[in-house]
């Protein structure tokens, strides 16, 4: 009976999707023109001739992420943190287990792998930072940079063991502080232009980047003739640190040695 129900469900699914393909077949194939909304985004993301609509960022994707739909991204960041907080809550009650005698050179994988990791891990961090810092100019941004940078602690955790990383100061607590600082930075950047508007006594919006016709304050688009696209650059930096630290926390929790769980309860 149960198998029959499953079969019926699968057949119905296939039939429904076939119907959908037939009905919506014409619109699945993308056209030679993009939608009107996309035209607006592409036209205004870097446009010196319409100063009240532009974001001053040649990267349209980052403009959408942190300017046109900035509030969406703030909420997505919230979902990300809820997942991290859930992991931390699940890991409560484990005891610290550090063996009395620790020979760090004997932990982890072979010398060859360790040497290669010593070379590649800093390079990964550099690439990640470059992805995050140039997020408003080239493909990339805070999310991508953070996810790339989290590969380095993952490599070190597996190849050098967890104790190596903890001895270097990358603990759950310190990463929590970095993560909270990044989150605070995102919050401050979101309301910075609004506060500036309050001080100046003019209209301004939360998550505003460049000046609008009704709100004449804006975050600086250029610093020392370098394009930083107002709040986009700060958002990318803070998001980079927050995502990197958040992933590092979960990876640290995942690699807690089994022995720390035995008996359970208490620090």
């Amino acid at each position: 009976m149960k198998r029959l129900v499953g079969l019926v469900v699968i057949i119905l699914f296939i039939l429904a999707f076939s119907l959908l393909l037939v009905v919506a077949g014409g619109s699945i194939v993308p056209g030679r023109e993009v939608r009107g909304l996309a035209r607006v985004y592409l036209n205004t993301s870097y446009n010196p001739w319409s100063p009240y609509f532009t974001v001053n960022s040649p990267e349209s994707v980052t403009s959408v992420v942190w300017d046109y739909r900035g509030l969406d991204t703030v909420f997505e960041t919230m979902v990300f943190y809820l997942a991290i907080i859930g992991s931390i809550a699940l890991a409560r009650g484990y005891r610290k287990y550090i063996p009395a005698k620790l020979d760090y050179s004997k932990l982890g994988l072979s010398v060859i792998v360790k040497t290669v990791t010593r070379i590649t891990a800093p390079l990964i961090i550099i690439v990640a930072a470059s992805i995050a810092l140039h997020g408003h100019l080239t493909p990339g941004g805070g999310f991508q940079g953070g996810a790339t940078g989290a590969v380095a602690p993952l490599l070190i955790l597996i190849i050098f063991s967890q104790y190596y990383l903890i001895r270097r100061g990358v603990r759950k607590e310190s990463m929590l502080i970095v993560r909270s600082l990044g989150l605070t930075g995102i919050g401050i950047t979101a309301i910075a232009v609004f506060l500036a508007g309050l001080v100046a006594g003019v209209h301004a919006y939360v998550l505003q980047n460049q000046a609008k016709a009704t709100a004449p304050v804006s975050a600086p688009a250029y610093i020392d003739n370098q394009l930083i696209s107002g709040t986009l650059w700060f958002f990318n930096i803070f998001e980079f640190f927050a995502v990197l630290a958040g992933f590092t926390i979960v990876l640290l929790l995942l690699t807690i040695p089994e022995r720390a769980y035995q008996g359970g309860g208490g620090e």
Partner: protein
Amino acid sequence: MDTATYFLYILVSSMVMNLALALYGIFYKPHLTKKIISLTILGDTANAFALIIGYRLWPGEITPSRPPILVGWTHLNKTMLQQYVSTAVDPLPQALVLTAVVIGLAVTLFLVFLALQIYRHYGTLDVREIRRLRG
């Protein structure tokens, strides 16, 4: 039907198949790890769908569609901007997908950790066994 449309139909059909397989894995595989793997396949398929919606066929016979990044903004003139708007793909689905990928990674890590804790608690990852044990 031209070649591009033909291949797009094949792509979309195979992705619908992928979706069906992922749903089958989530509902019918008893092992939690396999459920999580199916969930990642489901998420990636949904992301690929979003990207296809945002794609744009080549605007001309020899002018390819380009990524939504303005090249040469330091010496921009109106012709370049016009050309950019008429060739770049839709940036909105890409923006939605990029956050969805990172959040998907975080949620997957959370689920893996949850499965690990379930294994430590019950000694099994089979949902039928876990249901029978009742805490």
